[in-house]
C-alpha cells in the first residue's frame, strides 16, 4: 500500500494549480464562491479557457484531442478545480456525448462534433428523462418516425439541465413501437433551433432555473443525425450512463464545502463563543469530516481499481450514494450555522442593502435545498442501491 502520489502526479498537480492561478479569472471564481446560479457567460468563458488549454474533454484519449489523463489525474484535476472555485464543467458535451461519439459515431459525426465540444463552441443538452419515465428509460414515449431522409420527432423531455443555454441536444427517442421496450430506442442529435423544439423552464424548489422541459412537435431531423444503428440506442444509453465519472463522489467540492463550514463556524457565535466551540455543532462537523476523509480513500481505491483494470466497477454506485450524502450534510451544516441569518430569500430584499451573514453565505439555504437534487438526478440513490443489490450483493 502506498497512498502518496507519484512524482509525476505531483508534477501534474502543480501544473494544474499553476494553470488555475494564471487562467481562472477572479470574477468567475467569485461568482462560484457566492453560491448563486451561474449565468451562461461564466460557463462559456470558462469552457473556452479550458478548451484553449485542451482540458475540456478531460476523459478523452489523446487520439481524439483529449489530454489522455489517467483516472487519478482526472481526480486531481477535479479536486484542484473545486479548490480554486472553478465552475464545474457542464458534462453533457465533454463527458457524455464526447465518449459516445468516439465509440458509436460515424467518421463524419466525429469530425463534425468532437472539435466543437473540445473548443467549447457547442453546448449540448441531454434529452433522456421524460415525464413518467425518470429512471425507467425503457418506458420512454418520445417518437421519431421516418419520413424520407428525416425523422419526425414528437414528444417531451424533462429535467434537461441547463438546456436553456444549449444550442444542441442529444435525445433518446422511440423508433420502433412493438417488441420489447428497450429494443426500439434510438440515439438522435438535434439543433435546439430546429423548428418545433421549445425549451420551457422548470423552476426548482429554491427558485432557480436550472432544468427545463423540452417539447418536440413535428421536429424534422436528418437521418444522418442518428448515432449508431436505429433501434440500438439502448446500448448507447447504458454506455453513457455507466461511463466512468471520476468525479461522481464530488470529493473536491465537499472538501471545499467543509472548509467553508469550518470558517463559518469560527466566525459565527453562539452564547458568546465561536460556534465551532459548541460541541453539539462541532461534532456534526467532526462526523462529516471523518466520513469525507474516508470517502477520499474510497474514491482513490476505486480509481486505482479502474486504472488497473481499465474500467471502474459497480462500486462507483457507492461513491454516488455516500458522496451525495456527505455533500448534502455539509450543505445542511452551512445552512444550520447561519440560524436566523439563513432566512432571507436572495433577491427579495425590499429596500436597502441587506448584509446579514458572513460573505458569500446569502445563498446557503438555497444551496442546501438545491443540493437535495444530487441524490435524485443522474440515477437516484435508490436506483444505485438496486444496481448494487444485483451487481455486488447478488441477491
Amino acid at each position, binding site marked *: 500500500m502506498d497512498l502518496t502520489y507519484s512524482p509525476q502526479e505531483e508534477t501534474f498537480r502543480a501544473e494544474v494549480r499553476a494553470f488555475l492561478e494564471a487562467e481562472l479569472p477572479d470574477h468567475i471564481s467569485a461568482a462560484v464562491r457566492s453560491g448563486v446560479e451561474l449565468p451562461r457567460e461564466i460557463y462559456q468563458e470558462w469552457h473556452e479557457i479550458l478548451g484553449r488549454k485542451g482540458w475540456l474533454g478531460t476523459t478523452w484519449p489523446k487520439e481524439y484531442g483529449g489530454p489522455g489523463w489517467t483516472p487519478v489525474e482526472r481526480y486531481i484535476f477535479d479536486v484542484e478545480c473545486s479548490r480554486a472555485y472553478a465552475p464545474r464543467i457542464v458534462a453533457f458535451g465533454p463527458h457524455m456525448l464526447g465518449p459516445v461519439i468516439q465509440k458509436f459515431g460515424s467518421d463524419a459525426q466525429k469530425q463534425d462534433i468532437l472539435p466543437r465540444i473540445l473548443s467549447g463552441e457547442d453546448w449540448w443538452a441531454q434529452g433522456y428523462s421524460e415525464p413518467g419515465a425518470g429512471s*425507467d428509460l425503457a418506458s420512454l414515449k418520445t417518437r421519431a418516425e421516418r419520413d424520407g431522409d428525416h425523422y419526425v420527432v414528437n414528444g417531451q423531455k424533462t429535467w434537461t439541465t441547463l438546456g436553456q443555454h444549449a444550442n444542441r441536444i442529444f435525445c433518446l427517442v422511440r423508433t420502433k413501437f412493438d417488441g420489447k421496450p428497450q429494443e426500439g430506442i434510438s440515439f438522435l442529435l438535434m439543433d435546439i433551433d430546429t423548428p418545433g423544439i421549445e425549451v420551457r423552464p422548470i*423552476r426548482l424548489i*429554491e427558485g432557480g432555473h436550472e432544468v427545463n422541459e423540452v417539447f418536440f412537435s413535428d421536429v424534422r431531423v436528418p437521418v444522418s443525425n442518428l448515432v449508431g444503428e436505429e433501434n440500438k440506442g439502448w446500448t448507447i444509453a447504458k454506455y453513457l450512463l455507466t461511463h466512468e465519472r471520476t468525479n461522481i463522489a464530488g470529493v473536491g467540492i465537499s472538501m471545499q464545502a467543509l472548509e467553508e463550514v469550518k470558517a463559518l463556524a469560527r466566525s459565527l457565535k453562539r452564547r458568546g463563543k465561536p460556534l465551532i466551540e459548541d460541541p453539539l455543532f462541532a461534532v456534526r462537523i467532526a462526523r462529516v469530516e471523518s466520513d469525507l476523509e474516508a470517502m477520499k480513500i474510497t474514491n482513490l481505491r476505486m480509481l486505482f481499481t479502474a486504472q488497473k483494470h481499465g474500467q471502474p466497477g459497480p462500486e462507483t454506485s457507492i461513491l454516488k450514494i455516500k458522496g451525495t450524502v456527505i455533500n448534502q450534510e455539509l450543505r445542511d451544516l452551512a445552512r444550520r450555522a447561519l440560524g436566523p441569518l439563513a432566512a432571507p430569500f436572495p433577491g427579495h430584499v425590499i429596500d436597502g442593502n441587506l448584509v446579514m451573514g458572513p460573505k458569500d453565505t446569502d445563498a446557503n439555504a438555497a444551496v442546501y435545498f438545491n443540493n437535495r437534487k444530487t441524490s435524485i438526478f443522474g440515477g*437516484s440513490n435508490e436506483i444505485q442501491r438496486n444496481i448494487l443489490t444485483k451487481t455486488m450483493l447478488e441477491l
Partner: protein
Amino acid sequence: MNFDLTEDRQMLSDTLRRYLSANCVIEKRNEIAYSAPFHSPQCWSEMAELGIPGALVDEAHGGYGGTGFDIAVVFEELGRALCPEPFLGTLLASRLLLAAGADQQDLIDGSVRYAVAISELDEPYDPAFMIASATRSGEGYALEGRKTAVYGGHVTDVLLVAAMLDGRPAVFSVEAKSAALTSYGMIDGGGAAEVVFDATPATLLIEDAGKALDDMFAAGRLALCAEAVGAMDVAYTLLLDYLRTRKQFGTAIGKFQALQHRAVDLLAEIEQARSITISLAAALGSDEAMPRSAMAKGLIGRVARLVAEETIQMQGGIAMTWEYASSHYAKRLVMIDHQLGDTDQCEGEIIRRYAAA
C-alpha cells in the same frame, strides 16, 4: 385523560381550515408569500375578524383562549396551509404583554400589528447573550443595537424589543416607524426585517424579563411545533398519494418495500412529533414549559428535517420543483428549525440542565 379537542377548539380548527382552504390554496399562497409585502393584508384582516388573535389570548385579557391547546390548534392549521400571515409575532407579543400586564385589545382586534425582536447577528437564540442594550434617557429609554430576522417586522406597527438593561434582559416597546428597518422576503415564504436601533426612543415594558421571555419562547416554540405538525401531515399525505399513483417499471412505486418501510418510519416519527407537541401544550404556563419546549422543538427539528428530506427523496424530481406543493412544505419544515432555537440550541438547553441538576 382526553385526547379529543373540546367543542370550541374543534370549531376554531374547522373555521380556520375552511377559511384557509378557500383563501390560501398553495398557488395563491405562493403568490402571497413570495411577493411584497409577503403576506396578504386582506387575509390578515379577515383572519383577525375570524378571531385568530383572540384565540391566542386568555379571557382575563380580552381573548377567549391562550392555553397551550388553543395555540396548538391555531398554528397547526396555519401549518397545514403554509399560511404566511405573521401571527407568530402576534403570539409572542401577546405573551410579553401578558407578562407586563398591558392591555391587548388592539392586538386582539387586529388593529395594531406587533412583532418581537430577539435574535442578533451574534446570538440567534439566547436572550441572555444579547448585545442590544437600553439606557435611561429623560422620561424613557434609548435603544442601541441591531436585531435580526424579526418575523413579521416588515409590516409591524409596534416592535417589542428584548435588550439589556443594567446587565439583565428587559423588554421595550418601540414604534416601528422610529427604527431603521430593512424588509425582506424569506426563502420559505413570508417576510421579516432587520432592525437597527440608534438612540431609538423606547418605552420599558418589562424590567427583569427572564421569566417573561421564557414563557414567550415556550409559547412560540409550541406554535412552531404545531405548525410543523400541520405541515408534516399535509406533506405526508402528498407523499402517500404520490406513492399510490406514480408508476415506475410498470408498478406503483408504493409497492416497493424499501419505500414502504421508509414511509412507515416517517409515520412513526410524525406521530411522535404530534405527541411531543401535545406534551408541550399541556405544560405551557407551568415551570416545566421551558424545558419541555426544548425537548419538543429539538425533536421536531430532527423530525421535520427528516420529513422534508425524505418526502423530496421518495417523490424524486417532481418534489424538487417549485410547481409541486411538496417542495414548499419541505422548505417550511426545514426553516422552522431556524426560529426560536434550533435542535442544537434546544438539546444544549437540555444538557445544561442535566449538568446543573
